[in-house]
């Protein structure tokens, strides 16, 4: 574990690492919430908010990343992989990383170890079938994982997770008291677009139906947070959802943010797996 003000070595003398991550949840998050209502499995309005992600946002994001020659990390529930094989193959072909995000965005803290293992392995089979390889990274879907999940992922050969909230640089996960090679690259709620913009009247999202944040306000917050990560030389993890950030005005906000980041020459833009591999070798 590095000291708070210790200068972190990044590749090519970069001052700061940036991981652009996209949780391509599709309709899974809405369908999961709807199941608690009578007849909820047939609701189509809230799920259409999710459908927009793979359908409209993902191509827009791929175009943006391509134009800026940047690689993203897409965490995708395997059900969305099954339903959108061509899109996932296009993401993979473009050189982006595809990571594990459950089968239908399950809340792992509510599952037994066996149930977790079954979901992980079943989803890995789908990745293998659709893109010809298994996921190396994992982001816990929907809130917490259980106290057993990190050990399970490590045992199943995952390289890293991007799930916790406890640091602003990668670290080696401690499992059963042992420092392991399993790397954690923690994101933050402050840098999660869903927290700022996700909205629906019924079923209510967020729970208290707070107002949708203004784009300039969110841009300013994200930029100030990035400036802090740059100042201290840390690992900035932007946690985005295509259905949220891929809207016409918001993707322009993302592009402005990318331009702001790229105005510094010493930024290392990297995928989760690249960051994990670097950390494992150098820390």
């Amino acid at each position, binding site marked *: *574990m590095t000291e*708070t*003000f210790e200068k972190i070595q990044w590749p090519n003398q970069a001052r700061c690492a940036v991981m652009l991550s996209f949780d391509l949840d599709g309709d899974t998050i809405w369908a999961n919430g709807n199941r608690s209502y009578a007849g909820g499995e047939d609701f189509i309005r809230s799920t259409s908010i999710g459908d927009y992600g793979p359908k409209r946002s993902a191509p827009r994001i791929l175009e943006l990343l391509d134009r800026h020659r940047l690689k993203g990390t897409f965490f995708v529930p395997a059900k969305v992989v099954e339903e959108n094989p061509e899109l996932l193959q296009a993401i993979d072909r473009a050189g982006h990383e595809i990571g594990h995000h459950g089968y239908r965005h399950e*809340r792992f*803290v509510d599952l037994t170890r066996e149930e977790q293992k079954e979901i992980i392995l079943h989803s890995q089979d789908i990745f293998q079938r659709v893109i010809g390889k298994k996921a190396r990274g994992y982001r*816990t879907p*929907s*809130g*917490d*994982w*259980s*106290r057993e999940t*990190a050990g399970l992922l490590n045992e199943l050969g995952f390289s890293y997770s991007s*799930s*916790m*909230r*406890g*640091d*602003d640089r990668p670290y080696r996960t401690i499992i059963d008291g042992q420092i392991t090679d399993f790397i954690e690259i*923690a994101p*933050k*709620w*402050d840098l999660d677009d869903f*927290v*700022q913009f996700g909205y629906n009247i019924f079923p209510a999202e*967020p*729970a*208290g*139906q*707070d*107002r*949708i*944040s*203004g784009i300039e*306000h969110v841009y*300013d*917050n994200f930029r*100030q*947070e*990035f*400036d*802090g*990560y740059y*100042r*201290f030389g*840390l690992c900035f993890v932007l946690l985005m959802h295509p259905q949220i950030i891929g809207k016409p005005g918001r993707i322009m906000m993302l592009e402005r943010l990318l331009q702001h980041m790229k105005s510094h020459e010493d930024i290392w833009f990297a995928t989760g797996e690249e960051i994990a591999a670097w950390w494992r070798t150098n820390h």
Partner: protein
Amino acid sequence: MLEVKSWPRGARCAVLPTVNLDADQFWLGMFPDSITRPKTLSMGEYGIQRGLDRLLRTFGEYGIKTTFFVPGLVAERYPAAIEKILVEGHELAVHGHTHTSMHLLTPDQQMEEMVKAREALQKLSGRKPLGFRAPEGELTLETLRLAQQCGFTYSSSLYGDDRPYRVDLGAASLLEIPMHWELHDFPYFAFNYGPAFPIGQGRTASYSQVTKTFQREFDGYYQFGLAYVAQFTPQTIGSPGKIKILEEVLEHIAKTENVWIGTCEELAANSA
């Protein structure tokens, strides 16, 4: 009500940039189920691991000594963090033991919380903490009576004034150094989906608006000659981007003349 004749050193305005080092005990105290939720707890651990260092460095840069309110269990779990606070010369005060809301506890349990927390802090600092801030949640006059009997010389738990005042406890009274929600970082920024905090999962406030709000409020406290008691939470304000909010607020205050900045203990001694 105690009339404050003047602030220490004859200053026009007193500033107390207090810190609540709740860490993971905030989540465990409010949502005991969090014990099975590593991601939720990691938000609190961030306060110890990173946020605290940034706050201490910022206070050091401005030459500020302030009061850290710490739950006893946090002190027991993270003694190295408490040592860093002590080395910098800040004051340690009690913020419950388990960070459980006082209104949920019997008088005996409340007393036990106070005594255990006091002992946990005293063990590390070698001196008896003088201040008590009730954990988030409610309290009753009985809570303050117990705090007074327990030997605390001041409380910072209420919102009823913008200067210190004495709370009448019948046979005795206790000095209260009141705070205000709008001068607390947590309501603007703390977030978790599940367990939901805030309960309605509200958005992250605008960093620049919060900075300006803390600055405008200071201007008001200065104008009226009051005690500006702010609350900062390492897991919240201690992120790489948000620490700049604290810096800009302190910078704004530092540019103002005739301001006294110090600990609750010093202010309590001045108000006695």
